[in-house]
């Protein structure tokens, strides 16, 4: 019970901070919106290349899933900066001398980040709709998409929190996040289909978690693409990542707060 209450209190605290600094959400939305508006225009003729893209699909329809995942990935990798802030301001210490449930400090953070990335994704999806995107599986598809994104964000936030606790430096967390995002984004099926890549890059892309998550969402959005087995596989991969990152985060958190 304490865990639930404490998680809720810390979630509310983080939400208040977020609402009082809305500019932060706009900063992180800037990049996906540029991708959505400009990049999709830039690539709009590529879909006509024979045999690479699913037929009858616009580039916007193809890339929206990837842009959503790119945003989820890079936002999640920044989430460690907030725990560094609490660590350096002494607020974390102040919490730790109270009876607060220890896991609630972490879970409160993760729930906040998942919430935040879901809101951002809803905004991106809304904008994509305005530009002509359509979710083939309808409302159910949209809800499942948001769920996958939240789950995907949850998994990667753990990595970032771990880094934050370990390095105690917001700059490092930020730097590593930025360092990972672009290579992993371009070596995934987020913006181009696997068939358009050189062979070695295809190998990377096949093992790239962004590809798995993108496929899970893309199969929901493109017409006649949905397959239950592919969907389950993608979700299983994300779940596996989440288990690993959560384990590492909890272990390190214990060491730091002991």
């Amino acid at each position: 019970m304490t865990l639930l209450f404490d998680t809720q209190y810390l979630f509310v605290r983080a939400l208040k901070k977020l609402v009082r600094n809305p500019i932060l959400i706009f900063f992180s939305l800037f990049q996906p919106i540029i991708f959505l508006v400009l990049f999709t225009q830039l690539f709009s003729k590529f879909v006509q290349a024979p045999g690479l893209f699913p037929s009858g699909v616009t580039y916007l329809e193809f890339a929206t899933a990837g842009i959503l995942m790119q945003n989820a990935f890079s936002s999640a990798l920044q989430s460690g900066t907030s725990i560094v802030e609490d660590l350096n301001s002494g607020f974390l210490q102040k919490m730790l001398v109270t009876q607060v449930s220890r896991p609630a400090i972490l879970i409160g953070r993760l729930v906040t980040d998942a919430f935040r990335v879901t809101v951002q994704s809803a905004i991106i999806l809304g904008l994509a709709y305005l530009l002509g995107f359509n979710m083939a599986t309808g409302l159910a598809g949209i809800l499942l998409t948001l769920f996958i994104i939240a789950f995907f964000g949850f998994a990667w936030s753990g990595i970032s929190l771990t880094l934050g606790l370990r390095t105690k430096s917001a700059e490092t967390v930020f730097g590593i996040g930025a360092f990972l995002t672009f290579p992993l984004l371009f070596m995934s099926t987020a913006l181009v289909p696997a068939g358009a890549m050189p062979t070695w890059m295809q190998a990377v892309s096949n093992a790239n978690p962004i590809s798995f998550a993108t496929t899970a969402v893309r199969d929901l959005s493109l017409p006649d693409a949905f397959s239950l087995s592919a969907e389950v596989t993608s979700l299983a991969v994300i779940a596996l990542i989440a288990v690993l990152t959560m384990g590492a985060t909890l272990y390190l958190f214990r060491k730091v707060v002991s």
Partner: protein
Amino acid sequence: MPDIIAVHDLVEVYADGTKAVDGISFSVKEGEFFGFLGPNGAGKSTTIKILTTLLRKTSGSVSVAGYDLDKNPKEIRKVIGVQSQETSIDPELTGRENMILQGHLQQMRGKELEERVNQLLEVVGLKDAADKRAGRYSGGMKKRLDLASTLVHKPKVLFLDEPTTGLDPQSRVTVWDYLEELNKKDGITIFLTTQYLEEADRLCQRLCIVDAGKIVAEGSPAGLKKDIGADAITITVQDRSGAGDKTATKATARKLLSKLPAVMEIVDSEEGVTIYVKNGGLFVPELVRAFDKTDIELISINISTPSLDDVFLKHTGKRIRTEELVKEVVTGGFGRRRR
């Protein structure tokens, strides 16, 4: 009165081998205002961190409010309030929200919490600013909010790590008054660390003087000073002819002083020369006579009963002297502004 804090042979060795706390033992009685006085790096903060469950000790035993630190850290957290050296409030929450959150984390709810928060905000004089964001508070207000938020759950023992460092003199006195009231009226046991002699002198009923991880002296401020058994006399001097330079004049003065049998010790101080004698008042005529008919003129004589700094000096051979450091910083600041 039973011991509310009991520490026996506490040791903290950091990963790099530094012995931050080197086998200290002490106890604090319930309702006592107790202090740790020492310079930076003496191990004060480390001790507080161990006692408040934040840092794992290397060895030794600690009990707080009757609970063993190793077995019952959770019970200890219920009955202690802790203010760390850096002000740790959330700048994006209002003063009231900071307090309520702290209460929530200490398992308080509803009406009881609300009333407690209102009461505390009033006491620390933040009632009118309660719904402003804490980030916009002045330094003194932030400190008071920080202090108030550690009191929401009515702790039995309050740990304060240098509570007035960085405060202007006026805010410092306000905090002192409030701490005294907490201790006297509400009977809260207070454990305070400080590097300010004046603070330890005024607030603590009993204190330990610490240096390099060890307790070098323990007792009431008055008792410790009495043990010195001497008054300090600080004189300033100048050359009658106005010719000799300052250092030379001082050296001559020291030579003159060293011939007087009553003088126990001579120390150079910033203003002039400080000597220690059994009874300062009775010694003055002799002092004046000693400089008579010499090239050195006495400009001022200042007698003071021993300070805690003298106690520290006696036990460690060093001075704490933070007040002077602060003064330098302040003047430095003004100098820059003028330019």
